[in-house]
């Protein structure tokens, strides 16, 4: 790279000497004469090759680090759609059984340390469909009372039920995930009474979602009174004001609801369901052993080939388990390195041959 200073070549036309009219004479400024000082980065072998190698040297270790960390993350997923006839949840596929509770056993080979996160995962579920994404009313969710009673048109066909307006309106809210998952640890074979694992329901939503974007309808009285004049989405089993027993996790600010409302980008996604907080340093949060998952199966996905699963995962500094990430880093680093090497060889070879060509030409 070199810096090209202002090029001071005064090329006054030697047309003829003589008094020039200043008026029509172009200004002699760097801008107008295109002499602006400029940095002219020239990509040469000397700059490009090291760049490639340095890129490679940086990316490959990072990739390896990430990959390794990702491998150390504990994660287990339990599919409970119940499509296979052998599955305990198979019975729930028929709509007649209500409520349908099924239980799935699983084993943790290794203990889960630190905070453990419980997700529900859905696949083939198009939360990113255009018509789905727009089917909501943010004013209503933000506690706007006029919007509460008059949601916008986008919510159709989940805008009103009979004469009553639906709150929360729209297809997103209507399709809210409503399975209940409970986790039990089977302490040992002999003890018949399993220990329920305490699942924390709060702290799973983004802070600002909970405190800025979602607000319950204003007004005095109980939540039920504030929702007066509206009706619950048709698919919901419980009304909106009864999603949780705690006042600050109910109605529109119910965290499960908030999590559901921030739509997923891809048709296969997972959403945070509950937290399992680390109790102390001595015991792992989830010791290895036998567990069973108690599912209240309300949410039909079978009709559109959807799949449901429960995922338990720990978290590291680089977030959840994601082997892709490390691999991507390693790949990019390798490509950079490889390109650098190829260019180096070609450069070496070409320089020789071009030298000979030049000498031959003369």
């Amino acid at each position, binding site marked *: 790279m070199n810096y090209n200073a202002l090029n001071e070549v005064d090329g006054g036309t030697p047309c003829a000497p003589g008094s020039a009219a200043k008026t029509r004479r172009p200004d002699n400024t760097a801008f107008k*004469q295109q002499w602006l000082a400029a940095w002219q980065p020239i990509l040469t072998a000397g700059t490009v090759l090291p760049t490639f190698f340095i890129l490679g040297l940086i990316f490959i270790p990072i990739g390896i680090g990430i990959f390794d960390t990702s491998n150390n993350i504990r994660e287990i997923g339990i599919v409970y759609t119940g499509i296979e006839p052998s599955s305990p949840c198979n019975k729930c596929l028929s709509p007649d059984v209500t409520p349908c509770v099924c239980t799935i056993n699983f084993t943790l080979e290794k203990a889960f340390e630190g905070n453990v996160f419980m997700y529900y995962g859905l696949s083939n579920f198009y939360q990113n469909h*255009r018509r789905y994404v727009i089917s909501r009313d943010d004013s209503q969710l933000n506690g706007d009372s006029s919007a509460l009673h008059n949601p916008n048109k986008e919510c159709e066909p989940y805008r009103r039920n009979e004469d009553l307006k639906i709150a929360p309106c729209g297809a997103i809210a209507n399709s809210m995930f409503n399975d209940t998952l409970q986790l039990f640890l089977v302490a040992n074979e002999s003890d018949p009474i399993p220990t329920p694992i305490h699942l924390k329901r709060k702290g799973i939503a983004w802070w600002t979602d909970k405190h800025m974007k979602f607000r319950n309808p204003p007004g005095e009285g109980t939540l039920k009174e504030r929702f007066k004049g509206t009706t619950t989405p048709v698919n919901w089993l419980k009304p909106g004001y009864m999603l949780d027993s705690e006042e600050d996790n109910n109605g529109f600010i119910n965290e499960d609801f908030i999590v559901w409302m921030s739509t997923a980008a891809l048709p296969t996604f997972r959403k*945070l369901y509950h937290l399992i907080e680390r109790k102390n340093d001595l015991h792992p949060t989830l010791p290895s052993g036998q567990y069973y998952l108690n599912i209240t199966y309300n949410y039909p996905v079978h009709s559109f080939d959807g799949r449901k699963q429960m995922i338990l995962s720990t978290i590291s500094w680089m977030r959840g388990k994601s082997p892709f990430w490390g691999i991507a880093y390693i790949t990019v680093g390798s490509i950079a390195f490889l390109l650098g090497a190829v260019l180096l060889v070609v450069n070496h070879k070409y320089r020789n041959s071009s030298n000979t060509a030049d000498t031959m030409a003369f």
Partner: protein
Amino acid sequence: MALCAKKRPPEEERRARANDREYNEKFQYASNCIKTSKYNILTFLPVNLFEQFQEVANTYFLFLLILQLIPQISSLSWFTTIVPLVLVLTITAVKDATDDYFRHKSDNQVNNRQSQVLISGILQQEQWMNVCVGDIIKLENNQFVAADLLLLSSSEPHGLCYIETAELDGETNMKVRQAIPVTSELGDIGKLAKFDGEVICEPPNNKLDRFSGTLYWKESKFPLSNQNMLLRGCVLRNTEWCFGLVIFAGPDTKLMQNSGRTKFKRTSIDRLMNTLVLWIFGFLVCMGVILAIGNAIWEHEVGMRFQVYLPWDEAVDSAFFSGFLSFWSYIIILNTVVPISLYVSVEVIRLGHSYFINWDKKMFCTKKRTPAEARTTTLNEELGQVEYIFSDKTGTLTQNIMVFNKCSISGRSYGDVFDVLGHKAELGERPEPVDFSFNPLADKKFLFWDPSLLEAVKLGDPHTHEFFRLLSLCHTVMSEEKSEGELYYKAQSPDEGALVTAARNFGFVFRSRTPKTITVHEMGIAITYQLLAILDFNNIRKRMSVIVRSPEGKIRLYCKGADTILLDRLHCSTHELLGPTTDHLNEYAGEGLRTLVLAYKDLDEEYYEEWAERRLQASLAQDSREDRLASVYEEVERDMMVSAQRRPRAGRTGPSLLLSCQENALWDFQLLGATAIEDKLQQGVPETIALLTLANIKIWVLTGDKQETAVNIGYSCKMLTDDMTEVFIVTGHTVLEVREELRKAREKMLDSSRAVGNGFSYQEKLSSSKLASVLEAVAGEYALVVNGHSLAHALEADMELEFLETACACKAVICCRVTPLQKAQVVELVKKYKKAVTLAIGDGANDVSMIKTAHIGVGISGQEGIQAVLASDYSFSQFKFLQRLLLVHGRWSYLRMCKFLCYFFYKNFAFTMVHFWFGFFCGFSAQTVYDQYFITLYNIVYTSLPVLAMGVFDQDVPEQRSMEYPKLYEPGQLNLLFNKREFFICIAQGIYTSVLMFFIPYGVFAEATRDDGTQLADYQSFAVTVATSLVIVVSVQIGLDTGYWTAINHFFIWGSLAVYFAILFAMHSNGLFDMFPNQFRFVGEEEQRAWRVCVRKDGQSEMWLSGADTGLASTRSRVRLPGMPRTRWPSPRCGSPSRLPRSSASCLWLPFGSSG
């Protein structure tokens, strides 16, 4: 003002009766009110919008906007389209409005000028716009002529008046106009008020130098010609007053008829761009169809069952219909592959380049105080692709400052400089110039070195006297005598000025002229000749004559003209004088001088009377008057004969011998001799031509001069060199001869290339297509010189290809003796068959057709008025600026435009194709990846300025380098930097980027969670991540593409990034969401999220990844394969002219060639 424009059926002829408004009103001629403005306040909006929507691009976007208003289709809010559309429309509208405002202002000013109109017998002040056809108006000195007038009378004797026509044709010399004799007596108002003549004339047209009409008055007919007309736009000079009858008014005037728009030229890049836009559009439809089919299948397979959670729209009852709708939805969101800003940006860049040309002080000529001017702003990049230059000679290659240099009188040549020993002296060692002090009227600036000519004059040699008498009489120069003895000549052509000045210094001083007389001081004695007729010069006749009656009463016709014309006409009984004169002519022409032959002829009284009558008849003719006049002229100039003279020794011509001859040939032409005028080469012409030749530009000189002159100029400006293998000269007079000459030339070229051993068999070149390719590769340097009469045959349909192939195989082509039409035909021929960019450069009116025909027309603002400049696309005052215009400005413009287009298509494909990939993961529902504000602003805010800055300011090599190494010009000619291949590479790169932009976040997001365990795979984080990486990646790309980082580039690139982040955070702030929860629903997210995505490691890694990856990919554009230190700075060896062609090609390929 709205009254101004009325459509009328085309006129057959025009009738106007003086002082009879009622009569004239019947015809409803246009009033004198002009209207160049297009709009008024009320009509501006509808008319302007209507005009703008005639642009296909604008209509297309309007169509998209309408689509977006249909809720089932709308995949994007209306503002994503309307914001750019309104922006583009507004900018154009504002520009149109300002232009129109100024037009209104000037219209008003012009229409409200005052003029004196004779109404019912008294002069009244009237505004120009109220002047009608048939009115008589009075003009005073220095006033503008209000309409096209028939001159009736003036303050000067004989109804003369003087006008300046600078505004019409740019010529600043004064011209004389004369009233016809019958009306010239109508000097006072009383007589004029009674004048009731009727003029019947041609309908309005745009021919400035032609008018034919007839005045019917008092039951007689009087012919009217252009000589009697005062055209609107002229200024009255040196004339106290004059009266004129309005013939054409307002829009019918020749000035307004001429102001029509010239044909719009388009560059090859323009055409390519339009093709590519069409292809892209096709591609867009294909993508739409693919996605629509995808949608139909998806709705059928999945969507139908997914209705549990997402029921179909009421209006949509089938998967097929849904697919149909989603086709339109996808057309809307994918339309950004053809962004509306493309055309606007291209215009802006070209405008910038035009300004750089105007501002270039190295193309400013201090002497003439004229800067270069880009008169057309749309052709700049084509300046970087020129392959053929067609140049005029006189005034273009030469200065067009004529100097009387030599002459041949009665077979003796004067003007050579001899030193003491009698040898021809070389330049630089000239003796003292001839002393003209005997003549008080001599021009001090005139220099002549041969004293023997003056001696001959002083000795009273009759031939010499007749020679100079002819020069002082036969011309159209005007004289102006400011004070006694201080004569100034105003000549329409510099040749005439030089000749008259020469005569003046040798004692034959042209003093003054009236329409009927010419006064000459012959050796100090004032003699007044009666001027009987002037047979004007034109390009077809190539001669001019005057018929004068001497004070003794003898009628004599003096003629000067081109030798081919005149010598043919000489019917000579002996060749004695013809021989030496022809020798001299050849000698002069060989020295590059312009020659004219002079001859005279005595006419007898009866013949003249009879001829004058025929001439009057011809000039009265309504139709084909020009032709008739020409044939009458031809008649009197026929039978010019060189009298049977011996070659006379100067000063010793036997009078008896002369007399005896004249008896035989009383009516025959006497050859007087010939003049030779020197026209010096302009400064820097040989260097420029050499440089342009090195840049592989072929230069053809098309000149009206004779062959020897042209060839000589060719040598002196290094077009022809002694190193050349052969110079072919085609002078055949018949088709067969020309064909034979061309065939021989080709054979010679092929023979020599076979001799070199290229191994072409003779059979191979028989097929015509092969022939061309073989000829292209001919070894050795050849040149072709074609004569005008041969060219006429060569340009015939069955021979033009042969001619072109032969000519193109030659390094240099000179066509001499060509007419303006032939110039245009030659250009047209090359344009038609070579698919190459042509440039025509010239300075005179005879170059206009060529300038208009070529892809690029360059006008030299020189001595010959500004008609060429007015027709041109670029103008400057020196030929040598051409090298700078092409090699620096043209090359840069081309480079910048190509880089701009490549990047522009790249960035839009990278941006848009992400939607396509996303379609496969969102049920083909036309869901966008980015938020709508990003889509709106991407093209107009985030990525527009850096690429504009690159398009305007980029430089690959400094200007000196492109002059030093003209080979750098070749990529433009070969169209290497932006063609269909490059386009596909750019597109592929864009698609590749879009794949990375989508699938890397996809891979990461599929299972991503944040470090507090909450999910990250929500749509908004995904969108922000993709958008941010995209902005960073395309910014990195523009950074790599930008080769010349000025402060402005820095500002725009970093500024665009800064603006992106500023807007991102502003959009994601709580404040906006609080205000408009619904509108900003998508973005209704907190700063934290944006921060998290962008700054903290959540999104960062994706961006780094994709950024680095794309960076790797991007290097395509700039990291060239090794030998790198040399790639951008061609080594001195590469650029030097002495190097072999083969190695030059490899040097050349490096900077632009294939990539890593």
